[in-house]
């Protein structure tokens, strides 16, 4: 490679985004900034300016609030993971929240009719796949832009949800569905699980390094290798310990991590995932090497449908009810697309990761939560969210490789 001579801030940003861990950095910085502001700066400011204050009160960073933050962000995160998959293709899905709404409403009606909870969940997931795949087929085989098809889907599925729920609200008391958000993993098991995950990751990294050596490939530097393991360990243990300090790790969060891990694995480590990135990077190139571009597109929308259904189940479980405003009619759609983009997934396709979508969802969730705590109005929240989203897209545009900015 040619030696890099230029190192303007934008070039450095680009190089940072190219590295494997580097894509996490902007969204982590955003998260840290928001947490420092709401968690440290605001309480300190209050303490110094208010003579009546009895002591520092770190409400935002209290384990209780962090726990709630994770739970609040879980539905957004699930949808954002799905939307990331189509964003990687360079497409967009505006109907994800409406699909989640239809699925949640269907779940409510099914359990009310006496269908066992687990069967209802499976049926609803199948319905989500069908709803997503239907749009995918129109996009891939009829050739309608995804923006238009999913806009129509957004409207149509909103109507469908109202048809299923004429009252606009339905309580869900099914013990199986409620258990998803209610079951807590005992403290010790949570820690054990975290420890096992970190050990497994370290073992895999070491085995890979050994294989690289055996095959004479370039090796990871020790810093990168252990940096990745340490980074992973810190995040996992901090999350588990914080949640243990309030209650325990909820099953919902473990399920979310599991689903994300599966989708993450499919997108980065299988021929199918590689073809998603290839189509997002250069669809013509993917076609010429014999990939079935249309089928890949259609399946990707099926995946969004599946994740929207899972998001609907998570939401129904957490709220204990299904309402029109909580899904299709509310801000869920824009928040989940925002989460995917803030996570650093490019709207132009080919770059991004589902794990970043989770961090993006935390950014959106933290912003809403923090502004709520300071008593900001809904108007302030919307404007702040808009500004953060704009900032994220600006970072994406600046960090794109120079040659492709015109596309």
């Amino acid at each position: 490679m040619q030696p890099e001579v230029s190192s303007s801030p934008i070039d450095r940003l680009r190089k940072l985004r190219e590295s494997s861990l580097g894509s996490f950095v902007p969204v982590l910085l955003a998260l840290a900034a928001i947490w420092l502001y709401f968690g440290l700066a605001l309480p300190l400011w209050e303490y110094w300016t208010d003579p009546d204050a009895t002591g520092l009160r770190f409400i935002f960073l209290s384990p209780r609030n962090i726990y709630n933050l994770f739970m609040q962000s879980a539905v957004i995160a699930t949808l954002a993971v799905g939307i990331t998959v189509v964003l990687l293709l360079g497409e967009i899905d505006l109907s994800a929240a409406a699909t989640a709404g239809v699925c949640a409403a269907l779940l409510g009606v099914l359990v009310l009719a006496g269908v066992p909870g687990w069967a209802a969940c499976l049926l609803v997931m199948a319905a989500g796949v069908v709803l997503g795949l239907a749009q995918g087929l129109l996009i891939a085989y009829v050739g309608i832009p995804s923006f238009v098809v999913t806009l129509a889907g957004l409207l149509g599925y909103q109507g469908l949800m109202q048809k299923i729920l004429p009252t606009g609200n339905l309580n869900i008391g099914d013990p199986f569905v409620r258990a998803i958000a209610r079951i807590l993993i005992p403290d010790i098991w949570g820690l054990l699980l975290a420890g096992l995950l970190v050990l497994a990751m370290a073992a895999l990294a070491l085995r890979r390094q050994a294989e690289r050596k055996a095959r004479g490939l370039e090796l990871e530097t020790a810093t990168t290798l252990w940096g990745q393991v340490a980074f992973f360990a810190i995040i996992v243990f901090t999350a588990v310990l914080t949640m243990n300090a309030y209650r325990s790790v909820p099953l919902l969060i473990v399920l979310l991590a599991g689903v994300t891990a599966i989708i993450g694995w499919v997108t980065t480590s299988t021929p199918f995932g590689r073809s998603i990135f290839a189509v997002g990077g250069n669809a013509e190139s993917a076609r010429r090497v014999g990939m079935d571009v249309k089928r890949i597109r259609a399946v990707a929308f099926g995946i969004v449908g599946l994740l929207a259904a899972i998001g609907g189940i998570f939401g129904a479980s957490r709220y204990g009810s299904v309402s029109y405003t909580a899904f299709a009619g509310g801000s869920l759609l824009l928040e989940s697309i925002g989460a995917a983009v803030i996570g650093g997934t490019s709207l132009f396709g080919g770059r991004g990761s589902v794990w970043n979508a989770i961090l993006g969802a935390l950014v959106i969730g933290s912003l809403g939560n923090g502004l709520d705590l300071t008593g900001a109005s809904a108007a302030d929240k919307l404007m702040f969210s808009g500004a953060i989203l704009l900032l994220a897209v600006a970072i994406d545009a600046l960090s794109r490789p120079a040659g492709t900015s015109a596309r």
Partner: protein
Amino acid sequence: MSSKELKKVGPEAPPPHLRVTGIQKRFGGVHALKGVDFEVARGEVMALVGDNGAGKSTLMKILAGALVCDGGDFFIDDSPVAINTPHDAAALGIQIVYQDLALCENLDVAANLSLGAEPVKSGWRFLPKLLRPLDDLEMEVRAKAAIDRLRVRTLNSVRAKVGGLSGGQRQAIAIARAVGAECSVVMLDEPTAALGVAQTRQVLDVVKRLRDTDHAVVYISHNMRDIFEVSDRICVLRHGANVATWKTSETTADEIVVAMTAGLDNGTNNAA
């Protein structure tokens, strides 16, 4: 340069590996190819030149199976074959590197080189083929081998993203991808058109490497200096028909340019 013995031309020309005769192609009312003959031998670089609209790209697309010709015969090692789809061409070992390269800039070199034919780890038979884990180490091993075969020295890591590479390196990777698939004929469309001096040098070295590894190379270009440096024979097309084929060592750039633009009155020096 190749140290092979001086190639004979005319009646004693090297036995062609790929040979086509009487290729016809019409686009509506336009008679794009009027019975063109073309041939290329293994271990030879055959330059294909002509003014804009002479039919170079059409001929090349027909050879690659991207276009179907209206008439003509195809021979590989003197046995007749049919090329109707890109798949046919690939099965016969004919690979084309288009001018736009068709690389995925968001993927690394190793991923680009195995795109569409990714190796998967063994032992995951219960999963559908598209969901088996990628063997990315095997991918890197293959990529390194392909890069080493072409001696692309400036490329340090097969894990670099293609988006960060120079034009010459990208061209080399596109060629490596074509060669990586079992192939005997490589067709290059204007490989140096957008490159600077150093990068052109790099690509020409790769082309010479292809000749030395006994590939049949078809080289389309407008750049006379590159053609005279790298080619063994030059085939000139004009208005969809053959003008003549010269042995590179026995002609001059001026003669070729005249043949491209004004054609030829007498068939002197025809080396086909």
